[in-house]
């Protein structure tokens, strides 16, 4: 793997020999899963996008355990990444964008970059998908026609013999000389976190609705922790195998967490909570003290994600979000 140092830290594991994925019972708590698979310095693949299906319960658990020095990789990185940055746990991002669209930018992320405490490897979203695609296919790199001509390509040629190719490399198409094409290196996260609709104990995952970059990222990852809204039986998975998005061989841990993406949405289950996204954004915009207060109250001060939900949302709010989604799907 043509990795930069940040991508092959102490937590790196070989892509082969994953006895954990062959286990038939991967059900565990978020606390256990994060303690077992997320290490300081890990390259953390981040699921979800904007205000959709962000793995908030697993993110909170990483914050609760204060696992730092992380490189967060994804396409659009939003509220989950921003809370990790706000908690001081991220040193690098590899991504296509950081923002929450209508709710504004990712303020902790922006502040950390501008203050020089956070490095970003900028790609386009397709270039990130292409990096994960190389990873999931078990090849060292993959071509794309994006990035050409732009400043997202390295400014100085880094392709001198023996030198590493950097974050992307323009080469001649061997089958059409004179036609430039961009190569991007495989990205194989040490561990990815995702929140999906359904899973069984083995780790077969059912993703409904839009799937963002997750299929490629999950299959490219050395370890995958999936939280789910509902645990289903393996018999049910076997009865509808065409609906399995990710077979168990790619997954290391399954965590059951109802409303585990709150305050972001889960297709067919619940809508996003605009008020709570805005509440976090207000703290993030205000600066480090307000973020620390938010995290103290909403994460470090909570025994777990159910406690967070009870304090932050409450049953009426959650039921309202469920009904809002049902009105639209």
């Amino acid at each position: 793997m043509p990795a930069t140092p940040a991508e092959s830290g102490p937590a790196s594991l070989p892509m082969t020999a994953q006895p954990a994925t062959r286990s038939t019972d991967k059900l565990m708590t978020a606390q256990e899963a994060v303690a077992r698979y997320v290490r300081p310095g890990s390259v953390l693949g981040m699921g979800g996008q904007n205000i959709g299906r962000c793995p908030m319960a697993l993110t909170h658990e990483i914050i609760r355990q204060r696992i730092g020095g992380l490189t967060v990789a994804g396409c659009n990185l939003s509220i989950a990444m921003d809370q990790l940055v706000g908690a001081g746990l991220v040193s690098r991002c590899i991504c296509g964008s950081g923002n929450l669209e209508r709710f504004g930018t990712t303020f902790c992320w922006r502040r950390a970059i501008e203050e020089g405490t956070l490095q970003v490897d900028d790609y386009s979203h397709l270039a990130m998908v292409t990096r994960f695609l190389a990873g999931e296919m078990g090849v060292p790199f993959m071509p794309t026609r994006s990035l050409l001509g732009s400043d997202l390509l390295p400014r100085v040629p880094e392709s001198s013999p023996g030198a590493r190719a950097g974050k992307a490399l323009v080469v001649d198409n061997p089958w059409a000389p004179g036609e430039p094409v961009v190569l991007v290196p495989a990205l194989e996260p040490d561990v990815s976190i995702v929140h999906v609709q359904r899973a069984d104990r083995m780790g077969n995952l059912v993703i409904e609705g839009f799937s963002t970059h997750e299929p490629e990222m999950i299959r490219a990852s050395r370890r995958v922790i999936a939280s789910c809204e509902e645990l289903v039986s393996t018999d049910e998975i076997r009865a509808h195998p065409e609906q399995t998005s990710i077979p168990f061989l790619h997954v290391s841990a399954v965590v059951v967490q109802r409303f585990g993406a709150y305050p972001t949405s889960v297709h067919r289950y619940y809508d996003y909570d605009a008020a709570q996204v805005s509440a976090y954004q207000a703290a993030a915009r205000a600066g480090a003290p307000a973020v620390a207060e938010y995290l103290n109250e909403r994460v470090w001060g909570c025994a777990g994600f159910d406690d967070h939900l009870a304090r932050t949302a409450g049953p009426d709010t959650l039921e309202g979000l469920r009904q809002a989604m049902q009105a639209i799907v």
Partner: protein
Amino acid sequence: MVESAARSDGYSHQELMVIEAARHVRDGDVVFVGTGLPLLATTFAQRTHAPNVVCVIESGVIAPRVRPTPISVSDPKVMYQAVRLGSLRDVLGCLLQRGLIDLGFLGGAQIDRYGNINSTQIGVPGAMQRRLPGSGGGNDMASHCPRLLVITRHERRRFPERCDFITSPGFLDGPGARRRAGLKDEFAVTVVTDLAVLENDPVTCALRVAQLMPGVTLDGVRAETGFPIEAAPQAREVAPPTPTDLRVLRQELDPARVYLKEEEPVSGSRR
């Protein structure tokens, strides 16, 4: 003198920008679009002159019947009755890079003389003043769409001679530069602002004034543009919206005025 959001003749600058942008969407176009004003313009075109427009949304949504009014590409309202909810690879790879998209909507903090777009940072590399969200799918759209449409406020700082950082390629350095970089030659940029409609000159590739918003002069545009800009030979005035246009936009597409309410007062002196 400061005008209120609603013009005295019954529409805001922002409403006309959306409606004018929609006029550049052709019936049958497959349009790659995010949320906000671009989605309003695309759905407006669908409801009026271009019923066969197909929307593709970056989060993996293909051919939805968008409900009012989504605030994010991962908002359930943007996915309503789609034919497929897929992955980023489905839409960015298998449709966009594959060459099956006709028109893309893009935004950014800066757009320069050659239609290059910056959404990464203000300040050149090594001297960053403000970090911006980054490319998202923007670079992919500018790399692979034959036609780009940009809706933006017309301010001098937004229209520099050269972007601080080229996130999404326009014509790069001018004629032939896209081909030399390995991008497709078939490419056109249209920019709809509150002062004018800009398009690239087919020979020089530089942006020029194709149309002026009602009451705006060429000098007014030049005062707010950071590079020398010429007018196209037959530069006309943008047609005002009809009552039907305004009804569709206000009552069907953004009834809660999620986007349209945000019109900032426009100084009369800029006109």
